[in-house]
């Protein structure tokens, strides 16, 4: 029925099966949309956030999806700037994942603010000293870049490509893609960092505060670094997941391995940097603010030292070691384990840098405050996941996302 739209030379499931799949995920999406409308119409009292948790699940989700979407900029950076040409076979997917992550982040931000109709103030009345301003600008600009990067993919749809203008546009965009990618990488380095800066500049919160250079606290660099390290892991993870679902190999092993290797080294160096940062913070910055390290990890039901060990060692050092060893990344199972761990690690880091920052009492007479999200928060956080799944499903079905698919899955007639 929709065969005219499907790329040539590849096999897709029946339209019925596809519609069923999209329909099921669509229900989840609608649930999220309902929750979103509740938040917009009734206000943020629909959430479990409070005056101690001004930032909560949503901001975590924002930080996490942007870190995970970091695969797009870093792969782009490697492909177009460094010149790792093999990566062209996975860049499309990385861009798509990035596009989903960034559009989701923007949507979540639009729900998260108390006055959505005033959202544009962040641009118009920008305070350039605020890390959030930097985030907003870079995020929006980079989202624009991602859209531009995603655009030729859309235009390569079999039917659209037939329109000469679109065909030419797509062709031209490819020609200058390196420029966009470079701009995107430039923006990304900044906003990934400024997301780290969001927590790092909070000198009233010794748990989050870090020293740094110029206006940038160390978390600025750590965030960029970790996004560059873990973003590609997420791309790998989603690629593998897509392959499992479609029961097809879509990207050649050597491409994945190359990305995994680079990711591994990034992760390793990041982990080392993170350990140094943690040590300096525990030994110097925190005590200067009146806190021992363990003050941050005791007297509360959740945040114990386990979280530090999990984040840095189990989800940092361990996957890094797997990925930098050849056998580790050759074995699909350990590769997947490493990717998943890295993804958990970076998500956990973002959780800590948002939620634990809020939980730690700063005044000695204040209390640890725990938080659990309301269903509306959960639903609106799942909304982008559903949206992402649908967009991936549609894109995969109708667009030539994986250049190697035809070669890897020849149709036998």
């Amino acid at each position, binding site marked *: 029925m929709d065969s005219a739209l499907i790329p040539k030379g590849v096999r897709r499931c029946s339209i019925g099966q596809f519609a069923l799949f999209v329909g099921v995920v669509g229900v989840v999406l609608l649930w999220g949309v309902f929750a979103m409308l509740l938040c917009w119409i009734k206000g943020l009292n629909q959430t479990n956030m409070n005056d101690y948790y001004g930032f909560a699940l949503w901001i975590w989700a924002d930080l996490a999806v942007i870190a995970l979407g970091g695969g797009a900029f870093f792969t782009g950076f490697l492909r177009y700037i460094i010149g790792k040409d093999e990566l062209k076979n996975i860049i499309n997917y990385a861009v798509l994942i990035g596009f989903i992550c960034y559009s989701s982040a923007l949507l979540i931000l639009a729900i998260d603010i108390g006055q959505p109709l005033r959202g544009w103030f962040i*641009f*118009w*009345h*920008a*305070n*350039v*000293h605020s890390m959030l*301003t*930097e985030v907003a*600008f870079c995020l929006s*600009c980079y989202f*624009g*870049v991602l859209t*531009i990067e995603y655009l030729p993919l859309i235009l390569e749809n079999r039917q659209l*490509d*037939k329109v*000469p*203008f*679109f*065909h*030419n*546009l797509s*062709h*031209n*965009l490819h*020609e*200058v893609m390196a*420029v*966009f990618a470079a*701009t995107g990488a*430039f*923006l990304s380095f*900044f906003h990934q960092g400024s997301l780290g800066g969001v927590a790092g500049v909070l000198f009233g919160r010794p748990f989050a505060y870090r020293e740094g250079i110029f206006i940038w606290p160390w978390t600025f660099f750590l965030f960029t670094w970790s996004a560059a390290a873990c973003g590609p892991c997420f791309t790998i993870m989603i690629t593998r997941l897509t392959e499992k679902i479609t029961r097809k190999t879509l990207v050649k092993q050597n491409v994945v391995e190359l990305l995994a290797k680079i990711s591994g080294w990034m992760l390793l160096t990041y982990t080392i940097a993170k350990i140094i940062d943690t040590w300096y913070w525990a030994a110097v910055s925190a005590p200067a603010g009146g806190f021992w390290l363990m003050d941050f990890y005791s007297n509360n039901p959740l945040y114990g030292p386990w979280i530090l060990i999990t984040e840095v060692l189990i989800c940092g050092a361990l996957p890094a070691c797997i990925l930098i060893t050849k056998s580790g990344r050759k074995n699909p199972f350990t590769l997947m384990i490493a990717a998943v761990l890295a993804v958990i690690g970076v998500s956990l880091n973002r959780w800590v840098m948002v939620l634990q920052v809020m939980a730690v009492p700063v005044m000695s007479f204040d209390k640890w405050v725990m938080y659990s999200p309301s269903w509306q928060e959960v639903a609106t956080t799942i909304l982008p996941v559903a949206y992402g799944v649908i967009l991936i499903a549609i894109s995969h079905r109708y667009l030539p996302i994986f250049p190697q698919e035809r070669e890897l899955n020849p149709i036998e007639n």
Partner: protein
Amino acid sequence: MFPFIFEWMWDMSHVVFMGGLWYALTIIGLGMTYCILKAAVDTAQGKGSHHHE
């Protein structure tokens, strides 16, 4: 965001930050304009209509 807005100051922060921003926006804008215009010219020249055949 613009120099005519109340919050704007002619200081280092604004020059660096907004400079970076407008630089990026200019590149993106120029790049897109170039691509669209060139695509239009190409189309007018008849490119791309039969390339699959």
